[in-house]
Each structure stands twice: as C-alpha cells, then as structure tokens.
C-alpha cells in the first residue's frame, strides 16, 4: 500500500473524528441550517417527483391508483380509530375508572405547528425524518410529533433554526411509555432495527388482546398521556415468563410520512432521547 494513501486515510479519519466532536458542540449548525434551507426545496421536489415510482416499485403487484386508495383508506381508518379512541376515553373518564389517559380535545391549551417532511435518514440504522420547522417556529427538542390524523409518530430529537429531525417511534432507540387503552395494562413501546415495534414489560397477567389500541401513558413525562400509538397485532405469553410479548403496529404509515403536526405546548422536562 502506498504511503500517500495511508497518509490521506489517516488525515481523513482524524478530520472525521474532529468533525464529529465539533458537530457535538454545534459548530456546524449554522452551516447545516443554511445548507438544508437551500436543499429542502430540491429534496422536497425529488421526493414528490419520485413518489409515484416508489409506490410502483414497492407495490409491484398493485397499481399506483390502488396504492393511493390504500393510503387514503389507511388515513381514514387512522382517523376513525382516533375517534373511537377519543370516545372510549371519554366513556372511561365518565365512568371515573381511569384518569391517566387524556384526550387532546379536552385540553384547549394545546398548541400545534404544522410541518412538512422533506427528507429521511439515509441509513439503515436510524428511522428519522427531517422537517421544515425549527426553533424559529417554536419547535424544541423533545416535543412530540403527530400525523394530521392525530397518532403519534415520534419526537423531535434535534432542532436547528429552520430545520428539525424527528426520530420515529419505530427507531431502535425509541421507547415510549404506553398503555393498552381497554385494560390500562402498561408497558413501553420500543422500536427495532428492522422497524417493527413491540410493547415491552407488559405483565404476564395483563389483559391484552389483538386489536387493542395502544396509547401513550404519560409515565416518565416524555409524552403526554392519551396519544394514539398503534394497535396490538400479536400477543404471546408463556407460563415461565414474567412479561408478555406484544407486537404493535403503528396506525400511521411511518414509511410515507409527509405532513406532520408538532405539539409545541408540550415540552418534556428532560429533552433527551424519545
């Protein structure tokens, strides 16, 4: 191996490490903010231009029309599920059985900012989207992000002046305190490397069944209570284990998030990982 290549390699590695450290201190934030301000319209255009092709490739057995129809039905279903959740919640509260699940409509003080997704993380290790709203719009790290239909998709994990990154609930680093709406069984909804979500630490004796809705429990203070997360798709329990294995499917289509709502009225006390 030539000395020139070795030297250049060493230089690049050292520069990379210095950049990572500098990045941690926010030194590149103005440059990154400016770059993304310029690139956002281009990225948005590229995303919009290639969405039909992506739909076609990803649904080779389907047509673009059916894909759009499916997306529309999914949104409608998500909206209806949210309404069902709201009604159930109201009923629960009227019965004075549980107070820990709140429905957003009962909190007129809630404030929201709408954002548009223009990019997604390009790696296979993270599930993250980039939105065109930042601290200048009132967005802060830790704020929760919802779909227009009202289900939780993630939290803001980094915010620059005009741009923010939202870590999705399916990311392997995501952990959301959750509860099964019908029974109140508590657990933590965690993402994974392949994007599937499981509800962990659900007691073996808890009443959980397929089709149950899962909402945020508010435990830990990172998320407000009562935000819709998803639906239980699989429950496994063995006599020897302390916890049930519960698979949760997000109600929102996390692979095609376009418009999001950031809840700016909720700022968790500790703005760490979601």
């Amino acid at each position, binding site marked *: 191996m030539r000395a020139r290549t070795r030297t250049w390699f060493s230089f690049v590695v050292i520069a990379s490490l210095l950049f990572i450290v500098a990045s941690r201190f926010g030194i590149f934030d103005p440059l990154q903010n400016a770059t993304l301000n310029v690139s956002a319209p281009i990225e948005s255009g590229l995303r919009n231009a290639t969405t039909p092709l992506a739909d076609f490739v990803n649904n080779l057995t389907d047509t673009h029309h059916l894909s759009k129809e499916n997306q529309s039905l999914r949104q409608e279903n998500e909206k209806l599920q949210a309404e069902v959740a709201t009604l159930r919640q109201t009923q629960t509260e009227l019965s004075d059985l549980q107070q820990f699940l709140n429905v957003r409509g009962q909190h007129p003080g809630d404030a929201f900012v709408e954002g548009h997704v223009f990019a997604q993380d390009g790696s296979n290790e993270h599930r993250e989207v980039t939105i065109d709203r930042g601290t200048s719009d009132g967005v802060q790290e830790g704020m929760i992000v919802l779909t227009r239909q009202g289900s939780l998709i993630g939290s803001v994990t980094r915010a620059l002046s005009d741009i923010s990154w939202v870590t999705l609930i399916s990311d392997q680093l995501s952990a959301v305190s959750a509860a099964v709406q019908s029974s109140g069984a508590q657990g933590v909804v965690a993402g994974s490397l*392949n994007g599937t979500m499981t509800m962990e630490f659900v007691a073996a004796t808890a009443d959980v069944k397929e089709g149950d809705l899962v909402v945020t429990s508010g435990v830990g203070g990172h998320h407000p209570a009562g935000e819709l997360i998803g639906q239980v798709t699989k429950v496994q329990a063995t006599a020897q284990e302390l916890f049930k294995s519960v698979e949760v499917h997000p109600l929102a289509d996390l692979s095609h998030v376009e418009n999001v709502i950031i809840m700016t009225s909720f700022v968790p006390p500790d703005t760490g990982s979601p």
Partner: protein
Amino acid sequence: MSSAAGLFAVVFAALAQVAILPSFSIFGVQPSIIIVLLVAWMSIRGQREALFLIPAAGFVLGLLDGQPIGLAMLALSPLLLMTEVHELRLVDSDFVPALLITAVATVVYETTLLVSLAVKGESVPWLASVTDVLVPAAIANVLLLLPVYAVIRFASLDLRRPRAI
C-alpha cells in the same frame, strides 16, 4: 468528466440518498447510492479522483442527514484503502472487483454506524444486524451497482478512446 463532475454527482447522490432512496426498499433495507457511486467511480475513473470524492461525499452526506457531521465521512473512509486493492489489478476486469468492494464497503459502512451507536451506549442487536441490515444492504448495493456502473461507464467513454496527438 472530471473531479468537478464527480463532485456534482456526489452532491446529487447525497440528495437522492436522503430524499429518494428512503422511499425504496430492497430486501427491507435502503440501498446506499453514495457507496455504489464511489465504488463505480473508483473502478472506472481511477484512484486519483476517488481519493478526493470519498471524504467529500461523507462530508456532504453529513450535512444533509441528521447524524453528526463526520460520521458518514468516517464510515466511508475505509474506501480510501480499498482504492489500493482496486489498483492491484488482481483480475483482468474492473467490474468484478467493484462488486466485491461494494459488498465489503457496505458491510464496513453499516458496521461503523452500528459501532457508533454502541459507543453512544445504546444496545445493538449484533446478530440481528447481520441478518436484517448488513447482508441485505450488501446485496442491495451490489444490485444497484449494475445500473450505476453502466451509467458512469457510458459517461466515461472518452477514457477508452485513443487521443489524437
């Protein structure tokens, strides 16, 4: 074509990586057009241009994605050493080594990102990473190499034509 064209291609590829590729999924993973482009460029255009484009691609990608700037650059840096492997000309083909380098570079790139997670204190499911990310990503990138290689080969036809004296 020149390094300037390469830089333009890198910027476009980085934009595509964050704006287009996440919508496409091969074997459950998204291919990395950056790695594929760099390997194809190295194989067709030679080591000299690749040595400049590899860190540039890492820096540009770092500006556009949500990870710390420098992480993508670090993960791509082993490609610099792989340019030497390519220069050895062990087989009488540019394409066959490119396939192998793409697979190896993908595994190294993804592993570096996983190690960065582990360094941050996150638990990384290493075994699942091999089956869910490393192997599928390597295969996806090798498949993506075919069209990208063909495009760069076509655009570099001037390299193979005898020059007038």
